[in-house]
Each structure stands twice: as structure tokens, then as C-alpha cells.
């Protein structure tokens, strides 16, 4: 298994590590039993994601996808961010080994969960559907 240079870069110098106090949306997916937890914090002003941070427990790919996903949604509108796919994250990282694709799914779901949280807090109806419990049995996509 080989990580791309991009993945290694985002692993060794992860962007956006940390927490946001008084975040407007927070999402956590995964669980320790299955080896990955991602927690995403969003600052949202006027429908625009002005800041995004994460904390991740997980492998190199989990850290790199967290870093990349937060990077990709910063400055985007909430709607744009909802369009983030794990595929786009993978592409931005110049690919992931097949057994690591589930990490990118986790990143997508973490972002979506944070956005759902934002909608919920603001009483906005949505149909964001997050299925990933962090364990691969729950997911056929990896």
C-alpha cells in the first residue's frame, strides 16, 4: 500500500487541525472500535463556511482526508459544501489505496454531519442522510 505524496503531505502537515469554539456546526462520525473517528467543526457566516477545523483519530488516510475535506469546503457556501463527495476528496489527494477509500467516505460524512447540525441548530429542514457509523459493515461503498 502506497500513499501519494499529496496524502503524505496532508498527513504530516495537516491543515485545519483543532477545534472551533462556539462553532456553528459540529459533526462526529466513526467510532473507536472500528478505528476511525472524525470530528469536524464549522464556522458559518451568511451561508458561507468561513472556517473549518477537525480532530481525527485514525490512520494516515483518515488524517489526510480530514485535512483535505476541511480545506475544500472553506470559503464555500453550505450548499456547495453539501456537494462534496468522497470521490472529490480522493481525487484532490491524487488517489487513495483501495482499502483506504472508506476514510474518504468518513470525511464526506463528517462534513455532512456538521452541516446537518448547522441546519438543525437553525431550524432549517434538510434531508442529509448519514449512514456511516465508522465500521465497514455498515457501508458497501468502500
Amino acid at each position, binding site marked *: 500500500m502506497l500513499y501519494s505524496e499529496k496524502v503524505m503531505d496532508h498527513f*504530516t502537515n*495537516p491543515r485545519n487541525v483543532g477545534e472551533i469554539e462556539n462553532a456553528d456546526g459540529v459533526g462526529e462520525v466513526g*467510532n473507536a*472500535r472500528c478505528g476511525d*473517528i472524525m470530528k469536524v467543526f464549522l464556522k458559518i457566516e451568511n451561508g458561507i463556511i468561513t472556517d473549518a477545523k477537525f*480532530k*481525527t483519530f*485514525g*490512520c494516515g488516510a483518515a488524517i489526510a482526508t480530514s485535512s483535505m475535506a476541511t480545506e475544500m469546503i472553506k470559503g464555500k457556501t453550505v450548499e456547495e459544501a453539501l456537494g462534496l463527495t468522497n470521490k472529490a476528496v480522493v481525487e484532490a489527494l491524487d488517489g487513495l489505496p483501495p482499502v483506504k477509500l472508506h476514510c474518504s467516505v468518513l470525511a464526506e460524512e463528517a462534513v455532512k454531519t456538521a452541516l446537518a447540525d448547522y441546519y438543525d441548530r437553525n431550524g432549517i429542514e434538510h434531508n442529509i442522510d448519514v449512514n456511516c457509523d465508522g465500521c465497514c459493515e455498515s457501508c458497501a461503498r468502500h
Partner: protein
Amino acid sequence: MDNNKRYVYADNAATTKTDPEVFEAMVPWLTEAYGNPSSQHTIGREAAAAVADARERIAGILGCKPREIYFTASGSESDNWAIKGAAHANVKKGKHIISTEFEHHAVLHALESLEREGFEVTYLSPDRDGQISPADLEAAIREDTILVAIMFANNEIGSVLPVKELAEVAHARKITFFTDAVQAVGNIPVNVAELGVDMLAFSGHKIHAPKGIGVLYCKTATRCFNLIDGGGQENGRRGGTENVPYIVGLARALELAVERLSDSAAIAAKRDRLAAGISKIPYTFINGGMEHRLPGNLNMGFEFIEGESLLLWLDMYGIAASTGSACSSASLEPSHVLLSIGVPAEKAHGSLRLTISHDTTDEDIDYILEVIPVVVEKLRAMSPLYKG
């Protein structure tokens, strides 16, 4: 602390560096002395003599007859041969096998394939230290038990099992006893006559010979079918033109390993220093017991972080190690060994196995002890589980 100032290989349970002496011993057989041991002519006979000589030296070290040593291509092949071969050869007596939960996958998956054929397997649970008790084995034996397969030393936590006592329990009930000694041979004294086992597997690449050579010891009169049928090689019991270079290399490697058994205490002392040093980091623990343990094995748990990312950082600092984290396995399951000794999955993900060898220096230990706290802190700082 600069990256890559030093290279420390602390993954000797995964594989070892081919010893330069072993390499030298192989070179003639990889170049000019290319005869097929089955050939009638001079270079063929020379190859046959080299194989016979290697077989004798290995038999001498293990305490058996040369004819009881069969060369294979790996520990996995030896495991599969012993387990499938003995099961099929004894099927008239019964279809029940006893093994343990924390065998290597070569053993576990061979057993699973037998289960699909209709064999029944009882898997004994190790205790927290990674030990299997003879009493548990005794209790599991049934009228139709035909084979006991219990490893000599565990590859992840290094626990060394009471194989002699376990074999006695099996033999009291006239059951064939096989032990996977891939991690034991070369690291602790192994004498098959003293142990009284019927079959024993080991692998070259764990003892500074190359990858792709193994041995199955099979005691005379032990019922075991062939796995690989073919020509008359290995006394008609394992087909395939002999890997002469690696066979020669294996004999030399085993001799060197046995000479170096006197280093065991020194290796264990370095390992203990490593354990003590790492244990100073909060929220760490040792997996497996320290009493009956391979001298070079250390397996540590780090809470709040995941093993693969730890490995990646260590690798960037030039330290090679391994983990029982799910992320390092294609199956995405954490180490079945750690789970079997009662480590919860979430803690198994944060495990780190450091396995040192005779060539690990004190400076190497210092370096590992310098690097680990730094990278553990780095990862904990970004972990949602760690509250600082």
C-alpha cells in the same frame, strides 16, 4: 531531532535482514552451482550433496533425524501441510481438531478451510498474558480429536507457550501434536526430541535467511498426507525442484541463530529498557505478559491514537515497526491476537509492536525512546479522544 538521521529496524517479527554470511553461503548456488539435485551428473550431485548437508545440520540442531526435516517454501506452507495433511490422514479416527484463537492466519485459515470440508475445530482462548493452559487443552479433547495445533510463540505479543506440557496432554490421548514455531526457532532453544512434538514448522526469513524457505519437521511414522505431490523430492513427500540456494542459506542462518542464543539476555534487557522508557508516557500499557516472552518482542498500547498513523510517523523518523491496528490490515479488523487476550478493539487500534534482534544497538533503543514520545504527542494533539 532530524528525520532519517538513523535507520532502526524494529520489525524483526515481520521479517529479518538476510545475514551477510547467509548471503555469501548462497552465492555459489545462485550462480555457477546451478545443478538440479535430481540430476545424475556432477553438478546435480553437488547440489544434492549440499541439500543433504543442510538437512543434516538442521536436523542436528533441532534434535531429529535428517529424514524428518522437509524443506518447504514458507512457514505458511509448513503450517498448511501439517494441518491439512494430518487432518486428512487421520480422518478415519475423527474430524475434531483443537487449536487456539491467536494462531497465525496461516494456521487459522487452513483450519477454516477444513471446517468448510466438515471438520470441527475448537479454538482455545489464551489468557491475558497470551498463555494456553494444558488443563484447557485437556478439557477440550474429545473421542474424535485427531490433531492439536498450538503455536510455540505468538508473533504479535511474543508469548512463549508451554509446548512440552501441551504435547504431553495430547500424547496421553494419542493425538498428533503440531506446533507453529515460526517465531520460536532461532529466538529460543528448540529441540523437538525434548519437546516431544510430532510436527513443527519454521520459516527462514524470521531468522535472517531469505523469504521463501521453510521447514516442516515431521516425526517418523506421523500420519500426514502430502500437500504438494510431484517428483521424488523430499523423500517423495513434497514435489518441486529443491530451492538449493535458500536451503543452504537456511542451514547457515539456523547455525548463526543458535550461536546467537547467548545474546538473548542482552536482547531482552534492551527490550525491557524500551518497555520502561515508553511506559513513562501516560496512557500506555503493555500487551501480553512479560514473563514467558520472546526476548526481542515488545507490544505497547497507546490510548487515543491509531497505530497506522503512529507507524507512518515512526517511518518518517527511520524507525520500522508494526501495529495490530485494523488500518494496517486488508481485512479492516484489528489484530485477532490482541482481541483474543482481551484487549478491546479501541485499544487494539493503538498498538505498536517493536521487535528487536541481535543487531539492535543501545543507540537504536535511545533513538526509539527519543522519537516515540514526540510522535505520540503529535497524534494525541489531533485526536478527538484525547483531553490533554
